[in-house]
């Protein structure tokens, strides 16, 4: 299937989303919800550098992913979410030639239910959510598994003063896909994610009635397992600036432990995120 890059970017930008998720790091989903009747929007651009070995030889790959995530608060505790991941790939094999491609990953659609909320003070809170959904096939050549892949997950967010801790676990049953894929979780084996995050508010030290912006440093540990035996651990430091109507974030991802035989190996990645409240 042919995709027109300008058209898809235009659609993604003009999606009718209205609000952002607050105080959430880049790679660890939070247990927060947008609120009843409110739309939330998040847009990330990731650059990833891979290398790998296939039957026809080694290869290198640069990949750019432009992901729009939309959430709608059905109730204060129940959120409907969808993702639109557009991908550009620049594939090079030393033995042959370069090729470029553009397409769309499968489309995750899910429900998030916040089953626990304990607000301990004006700032401090602990929240936990269950997540469940399915990755719908995009039928985009080279990028889609062309299968319906269900998943379940759990997320926890704890804020205490200037400190924030997050945890997330997810299991995805893959019902299709190719034996060798580029990305984690895109192949035929089931995929397991375990994420932990720490966030620290560096400014302001104390909130006041005039506070309109916060700056945080954050670090994440992202563990990836697949039932074919592949696993890797990624370390992701970053920074988040959050105002009332927008947020900007930047993080890098570095592998610190890798045992990957059935897909490409991530060398490094960087993600920029921009969010706006309309």
């Amino acid at each position: 299937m042919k995709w027109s890059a300008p058209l898809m970017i235009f659609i993604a930008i003009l999606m009718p989303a209205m609000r952002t998720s607050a105080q959430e790091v880049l790679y660890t989903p939070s247990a927060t919800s947008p609120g009843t009747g409110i739309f939330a929007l998040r847009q990330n651009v990731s650059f990833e550098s891979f290398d790998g070995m296939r039957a026809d030889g080694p290869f290198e790959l640069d990949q750019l992913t432009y992901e729009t995530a939309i959430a709608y608060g059905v109730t204060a505790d129940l959120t409907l979410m969808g993702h639109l991941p557009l991908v550009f790939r620049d594939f090079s094999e030393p033995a042959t030639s370069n090729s470029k491609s553009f397409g769309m990953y499968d489309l995750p659609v899910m429900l998030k239910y916040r089953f626990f909320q304990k607000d301990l003070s004006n700032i401090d809170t602990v929240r936990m959510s269950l997540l469940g959904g399915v990755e719908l096939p995009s039928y985009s050549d080279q990028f889609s598994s062309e299968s319906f892949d269900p998943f379940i997950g759990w997320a926890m967010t704890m804020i205490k003063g200037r400190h924030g801790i997050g945890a997330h676990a997810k299991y995805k049953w893959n019902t299709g896909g190719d034996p060798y894929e580029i990305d984690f979780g895109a192949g035929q084996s089931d995929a397991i994610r375990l994420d932990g995050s720490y966030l620290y508010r560096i400014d302001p030290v104390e909130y006041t009635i005039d506070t309109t912006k916060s700056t945080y440093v954050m670090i994440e540990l992202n563990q990836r397992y697949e039932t074919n035996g592949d696993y890797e651990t990624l370390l992701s430091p970053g920074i988040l600036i959050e105002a009332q109507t927008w947020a900007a974030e930047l993080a890098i991802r570095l592998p610190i432990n890798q045992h990957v035989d059935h897909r490409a190996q991530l060398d490094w990645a960087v993600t920029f995120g921009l969010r706006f409240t309309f």
Partner: protein
Amino acid sequence: MKTLSIAALLLFTIALVGCATTGSTTKAPLDPAQADVQVMIKGMSCPQCANNIKDIMERVDGVDQARVDLGAGRVLIAFTEGNPISEDELVLAVKDAGFTPGEVSYKNEKGGRQ
């Protein structure tokens, strides 16, 4: 690298759209002395949480303006003239935003809170 150029272009486009569509209306923040009621709130940990509360409060019929005080964990609300809002409605709005409401204090005739 061409891919990085595309990334930069995408970011610029997102930023441009965002800048073009935010902050078009400016209204002076509510003076705390002019507030008709204050609602204490728990679990409000960030500026965007505050903005969610403000927007949801300002959707309630009869609310003229709301201002969130992150430091004190409260939202201050001014009613439209002659249109007081019940405590139940204010509490429901806080819950709809996903936070825990606390004490609701209306301004008394002397300008204090009760």
